[in-house]
């Protein structure tokens, strides 16, 4: 036993920061010159940036800056007219929802998009759908993989339920849950897919301080424990600056700045945009 010599109590902050840096790896996803138009309106205008493996990347910007549209392009819900998305060695122009899902891109939504008629457990189980392979007959008669998969994935889902501390609402229909818990269930559903890249669209919108703290903790834990890369849209600047490794700032659909929290904080264009200097 090596004893008293190394018994410094508490955590050494530098060790943690170093570990974080070590965890961030190569580029996982690169958005290349994306332009998205609705009718004549350009929601996104030639934006490029990348997301590295293991990092927490935030997309910030004023309302209507095209942040949600950006996430929608990344996971294929919107198909941009121009540009392409390079992801894990392949170029997609555009990305399709099914490509995104099968490649491990999961997301949560700004306005909660849970399956209201189902329980918490079932909602999270839907996140496992791509991993279930039982045939129709096996499901219909609940034998073979039809049964074994249900149990196997239930175990996985229970881990998530435990992780998110939502044991007590396991069998409650999600429609009856308060807002903060619904957000948590939605995160659980996304996690159930064991995503490589997790897109979080305003995970803390409408939450009180305590709920925000909980959610921040979950996001950090997800990033650290599962090594999940996270792309985050959030309005609370304090949260963003604390959580993110790097930020992308969008304004009126264009890229305004890209860099570490410190760099972005000092960027004049960003300060102008946030202070509402008139555009012309």
């Amino acid at each position, binding site marked *: 036993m090596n004893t008293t010599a190394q018994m410094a109590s508490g955590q050494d902050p530098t060790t943690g920061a170093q570990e974080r840096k070590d965890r961030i790896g190569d580029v996982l996803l690169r958005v290349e010159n994306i332009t998205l138009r*609705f009718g004549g309106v350009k929601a996104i205008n030639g934006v490029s940036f990348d997301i590295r493996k293991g990092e927490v990347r935030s997309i910030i910007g004023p309302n209507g800056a095209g942040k949600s549209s950006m996430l929608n392009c990344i996971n294929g*819900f919107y198909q941009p007219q121009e540009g392409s998305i390079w992801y894990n060695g392949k170029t997609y122009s555009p990305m399709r929802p099914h490509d995104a899902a099968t490649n491990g891109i999961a997301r949560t*939504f700004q306005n909660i998009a849970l399956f209201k008629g189902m329980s918490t457990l079932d909602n999270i189980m839907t996140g496992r759908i791509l991993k279930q392979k039982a045939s129709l007959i096996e499901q219909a008669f609940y034998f073979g993989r039809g049964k074994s998969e249900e149990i196997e994935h239930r175990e996985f889902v229970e881990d998530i339920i435990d992780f998110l501390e939502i044991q007590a609402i396991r069998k409650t229909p999600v429609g009856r849950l308060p807002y903060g818990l619904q957000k948590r269930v939605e995160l659980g559903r996304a996690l159930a897919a064991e995503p490589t890249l997790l897109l979080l669209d305003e995970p803390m919108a409408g939450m009180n301080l305590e709920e925000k703290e909980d959610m921040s903790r979950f996001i950090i834990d997800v990033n650290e424990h599962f090594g999940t890369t996270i792309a985050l849209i959030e309005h609370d600047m304090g949260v963003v600056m604390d959580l993110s490794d790097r930020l992308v700032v969008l304004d009126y659909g264009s890229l305004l700045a890209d860099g570490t929290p410190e760099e972005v904080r000092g960027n004049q264009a960003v300060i102008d945009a946030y202070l509402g200097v008139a555009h012309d």
Partner: protein
Amino acid sequence: METIATLLGVDPFDLWFFVEVLVGGLMAGVMYSLVALGFVLIFKASSVFNFAQGVMVLFAALNFVGFLDMGIPVWLCFILAMGVMVLLSFVIERVVLRPLVNQPHISLFMATIGIAIFLEGFGEMLWGSSIKPLDVGIPDDVFFLGEAMIQQNDMFAAVVASVLVIALALFFHYTRIGRALRAVADDHQAALSIGIPLNHIWIIVWSVAGFVALVAGIMWGSKLGVQFSLTVLALKALPVLILGGFTSIPGAIVGGLIIGAGEKLSEIYLVDAIQSFYPSFSGAIEEWFAYILALAFLVFRPQGLFGEKIIERV
């Protein structure tokens, strides 16, 4: 097997025969349009897909005939029947719409199916279920356009329908309520700012739809007699709506005409063509022509001819 045209002893490729079929079809289409018009009014104002519109036609006609049989003068019958429709609007608003406000549209849709069933039973309970001939003095002679034989009552219906559409257009354009109804179709809040409670708007719009139903019921009743089968015919208004778009009054008219003419023409010419390859083909495609046409539209142009495109956002 002989074709319908040969049975009738005419040459199907005779121009006048074609005109006759086309006009007959268009006239049937006017009837569909009248029912569809009621649907559109309600849908525009409240996003309720009123499945009961067809039954309202029957119900209105039953009331009208019932009053007429009591020996009441025609004009008074009309007013009485209209009164019943307004009363019905009140009841529907109070009992069905108000409790279901903010429910999914599909629930309201199913509720109107409930209304349809209820009214069917209720109407026949009041007035009996036998077929009732209806004669309000609409001429039912025929006249000839060139060599094509045209029913006078068809022409009459066309005229009435035209008048009705113009009247509605004026109502929507030049009255305060009409403008409110148009506003509510776009934005419920806007309608409130005009100062008319939503509940009143519903009652008014259902009453207007009731009025349209009454007119349609009298037209159809004069032609076919007032009977249960009216509701089945009224189902044809559904494909009309798909073609015309749910929110478009002109769409309802044009859709009705296309379907009316299309099903009559296809019954003659399409069946004829098929029977030349497959003689045992029995025809009667009129039963489904409208629906399959609508289906084709749904797959290739879901918003209909005049409807607006729907964009989904997350």
